C-alpha cells in the first residue's frame, strides 16, 4: 500500500531500540556484566559462561514470547472483530493449566499413573502442550459445526470455564506444597530454558509465524466483515482454520515453555495500533512483532531486579508495567483505534 513508506522511519527506530534493549537485557541481572564483555561474548571473541548459557537463552526467549503473544493476539482480535480478544480466547491457557495441574496435583487425587511421572521441566512442557492441544482440538471440532465466528469465541470461553473448574477441584484435594508448585508455574518464567529446549521452541514458533504471515491478506480482507470478505473470493473457513492454527502454535508453545504469560497478547496489538494508526496487517504484523519483543525485554529486565538475587514473577510485571501504558495511551489519544 502507498502508506508503507511513511512507516519506514518508525520501523528503523523500533529495530534500533530492540537491539539496544537486547544488549541491556543480557548485561543486567544479579551481576551486571559490562557492555563490552557482552558484546565480545555475543560476537564470539570471548567466552562468558553466564551470558552464553543463561542470559542469552533468556533474552531470546523473551523476544520469542513477546512477539509470539502479540501476533497471536492481533490475529484473534481481527478474526473475532473484538478488541478484548487475546491469544488465549480459544482455551489454550486453560488447557495448558489443566495439563500442568493434572501432573502436579493429580498424583494425590488420582494416584497411579500420574504419580509415576517425574515433575521435571519436560513433563510440565509436555503436559501443558498436550492439555492445550486437546482443549484446542475440542474447540476446533465443535466450531467446525458452527457457521458464526462469534460462536467460536463463546465456545472457547466455555471450555476455559470447564477446565478452570477441574483445576479448582484438583487444588481442593492437593497439598500446600503441590499447590505452591502449581502457582509458581502460573507466574510464568523466561529463564528456565536450555539451548536444546529453546531450539524446539524456536522451531514450532517459526512454523506459527509462517502461518501468520500467510494469513496477512485474509486478515486485511476480514477487516471488511465476513460477508464482504466472501464476496471478494476469500474462503472463510479455510482462512479461519489457518489463523487458528497459527495462534495455537504460537500461544501453545509459549505457554508450554514459559507458562501462561498474561496481558502481552491483549495489549501489544492495541499499543501498536495507537502508535502506527493503521489497520493494514502488512504494517501491523511486523510492528506487533517488534513491540512485543521490546516490551517483553523491558519487563524481563525489571523482573530480575538488577544487582539483586530476587526475580519477580514475570506475569505480574507484564500487567504492572503494561496496563498503565495502555490506559495512558487511550486517555491521551481519547480515541480507541481498532
Amino acid at each position, binding site marked *: *500500500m502507498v502508506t508503507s513508506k511513511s512507516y519506514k522511519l518508525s520501523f528503523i527506530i523500533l529495530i534500533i531500540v530492540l537491539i539496544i534493549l537486547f544488549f541491556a537485557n543480557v548485561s543486567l541481572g544479579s551481576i551486571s556484566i559490562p557492555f563490552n564483555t557482552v558484546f565480545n561474548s555475543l560476537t564470539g571473541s570471548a567466552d562468558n559462561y553466564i551470558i552464553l548459557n543463561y542470559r542469552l537463552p533468556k533474552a531470546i526467549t523473551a523476544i520469542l514470547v513477546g512477539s509470539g503473544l502479540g501476533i497471536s493476539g492481533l490475529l484473534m482480535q481481527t478474526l473475532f472483530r473484538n478488541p478484548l480478544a487475546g491469544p488465549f480466547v480459544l482455551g489454550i491457557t486453560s488447557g495448558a493449566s489443566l495439563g500442568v495441574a493434572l501432573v502436579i496435583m493429580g498424583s494425590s487425587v488420582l494416584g497411579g499413573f500420574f504419580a509415576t511421572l517425574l515433575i521435571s521441566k519436560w513433563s510440565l512442557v509436555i503436559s501443558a502442550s498436550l492439555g492445550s492441544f486437546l482443549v484446542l482440538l475440542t474447540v476446533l471440532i465443535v466450531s467446525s459445526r458452527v457457521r458464526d465466528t462469534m460462536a467460536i469465541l463463546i465456545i472457547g470461553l466455555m471450555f476455559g470455564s470447564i477446565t478452570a473448574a477441574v483445576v479448582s477441584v484438583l487444588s481442593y484435594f492437593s497439598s500446600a506444597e503441590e499447590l505452591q508448585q502449581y502457582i509458581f508455574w502460573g507466574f510464568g518464567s523466561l529463564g528456565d530454558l536450555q539451548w536444546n529446549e529453546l531450539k524446539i521452541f524456536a522451531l514450532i514458533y517459526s512454523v506459527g509465524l509462517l502461518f501468520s504471515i500467510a494469513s496477512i*491478506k485474509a486478515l486485511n480482507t476480514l477487516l*471488511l466483515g465476513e460477508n*464482504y470478505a466472501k464476496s471478494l*473470493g476469500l474462503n472463510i473457513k479455510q482462512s479461519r482454520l489457518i489463523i487458528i492454527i497459527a495462534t495455537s502454535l504460537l500461544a501453545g508453545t509459549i505457554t508450554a515453555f514459559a507458562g501462561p504469560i498474561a496481558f502481552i497478547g491483549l495489549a501489544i496489538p492495541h499499543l501498536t495500533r495507537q502508535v502506527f494508526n493503521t489497520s493494514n496487517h502488512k504494517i501491523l504484523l511486523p510492528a506487533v512483532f517488534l513491540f512485543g519483543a521490546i516490551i517483553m525485554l523491558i519487563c524481563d529486565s525489571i523482573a530480575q531486579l538488577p544487582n539483586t538475587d530476587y526475580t519477580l514473577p514475570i506475569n505480574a510485571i507484564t500487567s504492572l508495567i503494561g496496563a498503565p501504558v495502555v490506559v495512558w495511551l487511550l486517555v491521551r489519544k481519547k480515541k480507541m483505534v481498532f
Partner: protein
Amino acid sequence: MTKETKNIILETKNLSIGYKSKKTENTIASNINIALKQGELIALVGANGIGKSTLLRTLTNVQPKLNGAIAINAKPLQDYAQVELAKVLSLVLTETVSSKNLSVFELVALGRQPYTNWVGNLSKNDIDIVNKAIAQTNIEGLKHKKCFELSDGQLQKVMVARALAQDTSLIILDEPTTHLDMYHKAYILKLLQKLAKETGKTILFSSHEIDLAIQLCDNLIVMSHNSCMQNTPEQLINQGAFNTLFPNDLIVFDQTTKSFRVKK
C-alpha cells in the same frame, strides 16, 4: 430494437427461491424470469418481506436456490469458483465494514483482493484502477480520510467505489439508499445511473425508493405476492404493476405523476 443486441449479463429461468431445511421447503417466490443486460441500471422493488433480500442472496450465491437456473455471462452460477465469481460480481451490502480505521484509499483498494498476490500487494495497474474508481465516484477529497470520519452518504459512495475497483461486469447493491437523506438518496442513484452508462457495468439494486427508481432506471423488477415482473418503468406503469404493490388502504399509485400519494 437496439437493446436486444446487448449482452445479457445475468439471467434466471423459472427460478424459485426460499429456505430449505431437512424436512420442509419454504418457497418465498417462484417462477422468476429476469434478464439483466450490459450497461443497464435495474431496481428491484417490492413490499417488506416479499423476498427481495432472499432473491439478492440467491443471485449472489450466498444461499442456494430451490429450483430453476441462474446464469452469469451464460455460465451457471454454481459452476463459478469463489475467486472467479469475485471477478464478475461485486456487492455493496447493508452491513457496515468491521474496521472503520481503514482509510478510504485502503478500503477501496481492498476491492482489488481477487487480483492481488498472496500478501495483497498492489501493482501499478491496481493503483490506477483504484484511483479511477475514486475519481468516478467523486470522492478524491476523502481519499486519505479514515472511514470513521465519514458521513453515511460519503461512506456509501466509498463502498460503491470499492465495488467499482473490483472491476466486475455486475454490481449488486442491497438497499444502498437506506439511512440517507432525500438529497443523498437521489445522489447515489444518479451516480449509479451515470456509472452504468459510462462504464458499461450492469447495476442491480434493491430499494424502497420507487419514485426515484421510476425516474432513473432502465428497468425495474417488481416483486409482489404472486408475480415477479421485469420491464421498463413506462411499461410497468401501463401494466398497472405498481397498483397492486401495497395494500390499497393507505397509499395509491398516481399514474399521471408516476408517484405514490397518501389517500385523503
